[in-house]
C-alpha cells in the first residue's frame, strides 16, 4: 500500500512536466483499413524492491578512476533518508524534485551574475561617451549606483516589488512572499505593493527561494538605475545622484515592477478584465528599460542641457565622447550580459516550458543584430557615414526592444522588432535633441525609454501564441498571443502598461527629483561644469597625466 502511494506521488510529480513540455500531438484520423488497436499495456509498477536491486558502480572499478564520467553520478549518489529501510521510491522522487529546483536555482543565479556584469558595460558606454574631464565622476556614478541601489532594494524595494508574488513554481513554490496590499477598483482587486520580505526575512527566518529571487531581481533593478546616470552625466551633483538613486531603488522601480511582475494590477488585467494575458513583459523592456529611460527623461528635462550643447538659437552641437573604443567594448559587454537578462527570466531551465531558453537566447541575439544593422544603415544613408556610437546604440536598442517579447515571439518577429528598434533609436535621438532640446549625452532616453515602450507594444503585436510556460501566463490559461496572431486584447493590456509608464512613472519620478532639487540641488555650478566634475565633485582626475583642454565650452 505504501509502495503504491509512493508510486502515485512519483507519477504526479512527473505528469505536469510532460504536459508542459510535450508538443501537442494531433489525434490521428481513424483509418478504415487499420486493424483494431489493442488497449495499451498498463505501465510497469516500480516497487522499492526494484530500486534496492539496482547497484551502483563497483567500488573496485572506481579505484581506477572515471575517465569517461560514466561511474560518477549514479544511484549511489541518491541520499537515503532512513538507513534501515535503504533506498526507497520516496528518496528517488525527492531527488528528482531537488534536481529540478537545483537546475533552476543555478540557472537563475548564473544568469543573475551575467546581468550584474552589465553594470561594467553601462559604466564603459557612459564614461566613453563623456568627456575626459568628467570621466571619474561618470564612472563613480556607475560604480556606486550598484551599492546605493542594492541597499535601497534590500531595505525596502524588494518587499514592495515581490512581497506579494506568491509561489513561483520554477523556484520551489515557497509561500513566504504572499502579502500583497490591494484595493478594489471597478469591482476587481488592484494589487498595489507587496508587504513581505523586508530585509529578506520572514517570521524571524529566511528562505533560499527568496535569496535566489532577490539576487536576480536586484541586478535588474540596478540596470534601471544606471540608465539615468547616462542622461544626467557631466552636470549631475553627486549628492543628488545618491539620493535620487536610493529613492528609485526603494520606490519608483519596485512599484511598477510589482504591478507587472509581483502580482500587481497590470499583471491581473487578463484575469480581471479579459485583456489577453494581462500586461506581459517577459524580461523587462517596460519594467527595467522604460522605467529607467522615462526617469532619465524626467531628469533630463529638469536638470537642463550641458553648457555648450545648444547655441543661443537652440541649434544642437555635437559634444563627442572621449573614448569610442570603450563605448563599443561596453556595448559588447552589455550584449553578453543580455544572455542573462532574457533567458534568465524563465527563472529556470527545467519544467514549465523553461526549455524555451534556447529560443529566448536566439531571439535576443537576432534582435541585437537587427538593431545594429538598422541604426548603422539609417546613419549611413542619412549622414553618409556608418556612425559607430549610433551603431552601438542600435545594438542596445534592439536588445532593449526584444527584452519584453523575447519569450513570446519567433525569430522572424525578433528580427523585425530589432530592425524597427535600430531605426527608432536614431529617429528618437534626433527628436529628443532637435525638437525637445533635451540633452542626453548617451542617448539613454531613446535607447531605453523609446525602445522600452516599443518592446512592450511589440508583445501585443508579435507574440505568436506558441510559448507555453506551464499552460498559463499571469493566471490566464493558454499562451500569450498578439494582435497579428489573433488577440487584440493583449495589445490593449500592453498599451495600458505604456500609459502607466508615461503617465505615472514619469510624474512620480519628476516629483521625487523636484523635491531633491529643492533640498539638495540637482545641478552643479557653471564653474564646476566648465572645469569638469572630476576635481570639484570627486577630488581626483580620472586621467591625471592627460592635458585636459577646456578653452571652448564644447571641448
Amino acid at each position, binding site marked *: 500500500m505504501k509502495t503504491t502511494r509512493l508510486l502515485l506521488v512519483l507519477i504526479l510529480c512527473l505528469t505536469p512536466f510532460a504536459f508542459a513540455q510535450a508538443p501537442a500531438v494531433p489525434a490521428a484520423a481513424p483509418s478504415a483499413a487499420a486493424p483494431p488497436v489493442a488497449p495499451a499495456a498498463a505501465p510497469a509498477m516500480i516497487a522499492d524492491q526494484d530500486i534496492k536491486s539496482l547497484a551502483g558502480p563497483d567500488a573496485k572499478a572506481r579505484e581506477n578512476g572515471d575517465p569517461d564520467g560514466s561511474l560518477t553520478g549514479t544511484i549511489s549518489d541518491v541520499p537515503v533518508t532512513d538507513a534501515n529501510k535503504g533506498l526507497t521510491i520516496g528518496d528517488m522522487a525527492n531527488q528528482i524534485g531537488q534536481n529540478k529546483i537545483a537546475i533552476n536555482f543555478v540557472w537563475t543565479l548564473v544568469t543573475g551574475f551575467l546581468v550584474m556584469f552589465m553594470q561594467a558595460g553601462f559604466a564603459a558606454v557612459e564614461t566613453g561617451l563623456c568627456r575626459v574631464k568628467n570621466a571619474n565622476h561618470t564612472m563613480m556614478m556607475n560604480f556606486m549606483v550598484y551599492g546605493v541601489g542594492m541597499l535601497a532594494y534590500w531595505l525596502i524595494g524588494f518587499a514592495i516589488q515581490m512581497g506579494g508574488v506568491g509561489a513561483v513554481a520554477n523556484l520551489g513554490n515557497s509561500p513566504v512572499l504572499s502579502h500583497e496590499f490591494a484595493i478594489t*477598483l*471597478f469591482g476587481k482587486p488592484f494589487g498595489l505593493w507587496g508587504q513581505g520580505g523586508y530585509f529578506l526575512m520572514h517570521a524571524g527566518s529566511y528562505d533560499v527561494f527568496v535569496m535566489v529571487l532577490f539576487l536576480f531581481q536586484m541586478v535588474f533593478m540596478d540596470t534601471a538605475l544606471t540608465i539615468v546616470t547616462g542622461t544626467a552625466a557631466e552636470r549631475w551633483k553627486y549628492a543628488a545622484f545618491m539620493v535620487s538613486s536610493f529613492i528609485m531603488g526603494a520606490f519608483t522601480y519596485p512599484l511598477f515592477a510589482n504591478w507587472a511582475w509581483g502580482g500587481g494590477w497590470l499583471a491581473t*488585467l487578463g484575469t480581471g*478584465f479579459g*485583456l489577453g494575458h494581462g500586461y506581459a513583459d517577459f524580461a523587462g523592456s517596460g519594467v527595467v528599460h522604460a522605467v529607467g529611460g522615462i526617469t532619465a*527623461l524626467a531628469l533630463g*528635462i*529638469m536638470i*537642463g*542641457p550641458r*553648457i555648450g*550643447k*545648444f*547655441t*543661443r538659437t*537652440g541649434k544642437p552641437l555635437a559634444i563627442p565622447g572621449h573614448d569610442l573604443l570603450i563605448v563599443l567594448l561596453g556595448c559588447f559587454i552589455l550584449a553578453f550580459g543580455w544572455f542573462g537578462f532574457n533567458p534568465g527570466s524563465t527563472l529556470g531551465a527545467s519544467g514549465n516550458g523553461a526549455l524555451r531558453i534556447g529560443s529566448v537566447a536566439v531571439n535576443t541575439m537576432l534582435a541585437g543584430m537587427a538593431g545594429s544593422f538598422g541604426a548603422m544603415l539609417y546613419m549611413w544613408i542619412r549622414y553618409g557615414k556608418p556612425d559607430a556610437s549610433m551603431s552601438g546604440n542600435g545594438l542596445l536598442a534592439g536588445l532593449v526592444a526584444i527584452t519584453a517579447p523575447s519569450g513570446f515571439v519567433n525569430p522572424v518577429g525578433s528580427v523585425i522588432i530589432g530592425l524597427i528598434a535600430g531605426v527608432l533609436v536614431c529617429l528618437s535621438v534626433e527628436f529628443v535633441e532637435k*525638437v*525637445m*532640446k*533635451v540633452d542626453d549625452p548617451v542617448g539613454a532616453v531613446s535607447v531605453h525609454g523609446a525602445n522600452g515602450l516599443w518592446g512592450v507594444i511589440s508583445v501585443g503585436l508579435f507574440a505568436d501564441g506558441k510559448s507555453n510556460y506551464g499552460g498559463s501566463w499571469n493566471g490566464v490559461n493558454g499562451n500569450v498571443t498578439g494582435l497579428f496572431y489573433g488577440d*487584440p*486584447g493583449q*495589445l*490593449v493590456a500592453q*498599451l*495600458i502598461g*505604456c*500609459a*502607466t509608464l*508615461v*503617465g*505615472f512613472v*514619469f*510624474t512620480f519620478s*519628476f*516629483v521625487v527629483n523636484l523635491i531633491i532639487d529643492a533640498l539638495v540641488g540637482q545641478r552643479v555650478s*557653471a564653474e564646476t561644469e566648465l572645469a569638469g566634475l572630476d576635481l570639484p565633485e570627486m577630488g581626483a582626475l580620472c586621467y591625471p597625466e592627460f592635458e585636459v583642454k577646456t578653452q571652448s565650452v564644447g571641448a
Partner: protein
Amino acid sequence: MAIAGLIITLLGFLISVFSLSVSASTSGRLVVVLIGLAVSLGGIIGVLNPAYMKNAIWRK
C-alpha cells in the same frame, strides 16, 4: 506651467486606467487608452518641457 504639464501627464494615465470601466469592448478600450497615452505625451512634450525650456541655460 510645469505643474500643469505634470497634472496633464498624470491625467493621461488616469484616463487609460478608466478605460477599464468606460467600455467593455476591446476596441473601445483601445481608443480610450490611446487617448490617455496621447494626453500624457502631450503633457510632457507639449507643456512641461516647453515650460522648462523657457529658462534653458542656452537662452541666457
